[in-house]
């Protein structure tokens, strides 16, 4: 049997109502993912972005089964996780990859047990982990719009501070930039935006919108402003193409967006590496 069905017409993305909703949702998430993704890439928060999404999985399972708001449950978990990461970073005690790795395993295993054996809602696990194009409602759109707006506002207000702190933390602190507050807001915003992305791309693939497009953009730009704009463009485009692929192959959007994004990254990485072989920055013995 041919798994690759006939290619759908691209106009289906706007003509089918549920696809319109999904398209708008992914566009809004692309704005949030591109803007915050730029900061995630600059501040080396890629793993945090992935982890905060994954950690919400058991909360989503419980909410799904009990009728509680999935968004609120996920927000509670995500902000709790972000707070824990921030406190651990501040106290200087590095919990290490070991603790976070175990935490994520517990979240995933716990969620699976809850889903398949406690609540017996096993069918929903794929949707919670990988997202859905069909089940998105206006509530999800509003949340995504809020996330995009928050990302934009934060970039405008905090962008200079985040750049200064990322570039030179000690110097930025000396300049009077509120380093701790700025970092807290960044972690909190990433957590909130990740929650907004959960319905569409799922708990496991938040990074597909929040890390991959910005990484691709980073290969193409030489300024922070350029990175922000390019990341949004790549994220929105990737979301649209990914949604198309998900419609064509009848798979959830998360994996499709992830594969499209990774392919774009590889293509850009090869193209830019060929054009300008890596020039090492001038290094002197310190």
């Amino acid at each position, binding site marked *: 049997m041919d798994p690759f069905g006939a290619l759908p017409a691209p106009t289906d993305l706007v003509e089918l109502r549920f696809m319109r909703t999904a398209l708008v949702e992914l566009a809004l998430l692309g704005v949030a993912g591109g803007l915050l993704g730029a900061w995630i890439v600059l501040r080396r928060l890629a793993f945090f972005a992935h982890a905060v999404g994954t950690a919400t999985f058991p909360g989503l399972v419980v909410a799904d089964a009990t009728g509680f708001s999935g968004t609120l449950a996920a927000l509670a978990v995500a902000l709790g996780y972000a707070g824990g990461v921030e406190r651990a970073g501040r106290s*200087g005690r590095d919990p290490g990859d070991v603790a976070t790795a175990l935490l994520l395993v517990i979240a995933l295993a716990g969620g699976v047990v809850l889903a398949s054996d406690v609540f017996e809602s096993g069918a929903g696990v794929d949707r919670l982990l990988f997202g859905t194009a069909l089940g998105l409602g206006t509530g999800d759109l509003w949340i995504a719009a809020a996330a995009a707006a928050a990302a934009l506002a934060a970039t405008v207000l905090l962008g200079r501070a985040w750049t200064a702190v990322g*570039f030179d933390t*000690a110097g930025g602190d000396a300049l*009077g930039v509120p380093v701790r507050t700025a970092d807290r807001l960044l972690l909190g915003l990433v957590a909130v935006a990740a929650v907004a992305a959960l319905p569409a791309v799922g708990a496991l693939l938040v990074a597909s919108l929040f890390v991959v497009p910005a990484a691709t953009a980073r290969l193409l730009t030489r300024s922070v402003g350029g990175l922000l704009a390019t990341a949004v463009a790549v994220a929105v485009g990737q979301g649209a193409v990914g949604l198309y692929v998900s419609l064509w192959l009848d798979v959830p959007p998360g994996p499709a967006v992830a594969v499209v994004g990774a392919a774009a990254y590889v293509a850009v990485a090869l193209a830019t590496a060929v054009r300008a072989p890596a020039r090492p*920055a001038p290094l002197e013995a310190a």
Partner: protein
Amino acid sequence: MPGALGGLVTAAVTAEGLAVSYGGGRPALEEVEFELAAGSSLCVLGPNGGGKTTLFRALTGELPALRGTVAVAGGRPAYLAQTERTRLDFPVSALDVALMGSLANGRWWLPARRSDRDAARAALDRVGLADRASDRFGELSGGQRQRVLIARALVQDARVLLLDEPLAGVDPASGERIERLFGELRDEGRALLVSTHDVESARAFDRVLCLNGAQIAFGDPATALTRDVLERTYGGEIVVLEEDGPGGAVRAVTVQHHHHDH
């Protein structure tokens, strides 16, 4: 205290009985007591881990004083921290970095103004990098990067500058150029505190401060750098080149221990 132009000038930096620790435990630095006038320069000597960076972080206010007091006059000091590799791949231009100095005006959430941009260009011009304004910071040489950071301090119009090993890894020609800049900044009435491993270079400064977990000496480099002071500052890690009689000042170099992380 008498200043270069005669008459009294106020102290730009004062420390009295200062002790600093990380997280309230044992002090990393103690018994620090010195005064630096505006328009003068201070060389901070000491081994790795001896407290030079700790002192600077206390002066910026990042570390609170465990005991004693520390005061910096004339607004926020500019802090040029030791070079870290991560800064080299940040997508910022020399102009962007210089412009960061305007964040010190207290309204960091507002975009940079036209006047700030002009000031940044003027500062880059002053340090001789006007033509490199749009180059990536990471693509500049070590000496050029230090000058960009000085430009940032100029945009900030800092009256006190803290430079943590600014000449490390910088070629001698650039180093001389930077030292000339130090002189200009000093003559403008700013106060410079420069930490270094180069004991000999201390002689060019107005004052010297020797730290090794505690203050060993403070004063005029011509008289303060005795063999005893240097030995207490650097443990056994000095090579004496020339001695001016017992108890007098010596010419010496420090033995560097480079720690390479692989």
